[in-house]
């Protein structure tokens, strides 16, 4: 092979660099344990039954889709009320409903977003009180 040795050598170096995260997990220190998310806020502590607008698992995996849908509903379709599976009615509002309970943005929202490397700009415009 033309310049075979060099090609193989660089291929090995390339693989070593690209697969770095796997090396880190396999041979390095313990794998990351995931973010610490706190629901310790006055509003949540006051609740008899600690229940979000949907199941925790669903909220963990799909809150962004729900918020996106809420945004479309409110801004474009004038639909401002959300009825949960339990029959309770909520206002479709990031500022009012979500952040009303989850007032600890740093321990709740940011903890996970930072861990996942997600850079959001929702707060640039929403929840002016925080800025």
């Amino acid at each position, binding site marked *: 092979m033309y310049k075979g040795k060099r090609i193989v050598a660089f291929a090995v170096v390339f693989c070593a660099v690209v697969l770095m995260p796997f090396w880190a997990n396999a041979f390095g220190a313990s794998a990351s344990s995931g973010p610490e998310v706190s629901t310790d806020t006055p509003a949540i502590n006051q609740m008899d039954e600690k229940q979000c607008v949907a199941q925790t698992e669903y909220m963990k995996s799909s809150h962004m889709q729900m918020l996106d849908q809420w945004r479309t509903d409110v801004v474009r379709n*004038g639909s401002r009320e959300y009825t949960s599976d339990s029959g309770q009615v909520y206002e479709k509002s990031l500022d009012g409903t979500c952040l009303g309970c989850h007032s600890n943005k740093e321990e709740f929202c940011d903890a996970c977003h930072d861990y996942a490397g997600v850079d959001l700009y929702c707060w*640039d*415009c929403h929840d002016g009180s925080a800025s």
Partner: protein
Amino acid sequence: MAMKRRDFLIVGAALGAAGLGALSGCSPTEGAPARAEGGTPGRHWGFVVDVEKFNRVADMDKIRSVCAQAYNIPSIDDPKEEIKWIWEEPFEDSFADMDEAYLPDAVKESGVPVLCNHCEEPPCVRVCPTQATFKRKDGIVEMDYHRCIGCRFCMAACPYGARSLNFSDPAKHLDHVNPDFPTRTRGVVEKCTLCSDRIDRGEAPLCAEASNGSILFGDLNDPDSDVRRALAQSFSIRRRASLGTGPSVYYVLKGVEEHA
């Protein structure tokens, strides 16, 4: 393996195309209607400005500040980059196409409040390439700031100069932020919303409330509404109505009769 390079590329391209198709299925608004459905059908919200009364009793600074505080409108000194939702212009400039030489001084020298006309046939909605601006069922022309790409086609299309671009970050020009209403980001266009959030809660727009009765608000489709009764009693005009936009803001010129 007898797969030739060419076949490999074709298969690769097909797979790539399939992947793109799958990606488009992840569209965040999948299932959402392309057209806006908001607002109560059958309504047609509008304003009637009593020009003479406005000049006598209204305090434009107060109206502007009430509006600006509620909707986090930045105050920018540079007239080129000002964000304007409602503001005052001389009658002669606002109705320049009328070009009447011998109007009563009271009318000629008066100022009128100008704002988005929430047109029946809004040119801004027609030209917007992303439906970021749209018309609700109750006639309100709304903005979706999340979707606006800042192409400013709507600004060129609006015959009323009612649209403003956030040339820079508006947060820098806000002294106090009302947490109940979002601020905007730079690079998006904004305008008067006719207080659609208040209307949805059954409240009247702020400018009408703060105008000491010189700006009437109501349903133009309802013959018994304040606005329709006012229009039935007096001579009224609309800005550049000949363009076929169907403005929903009427200006009543009772002053003509009183001063004649």
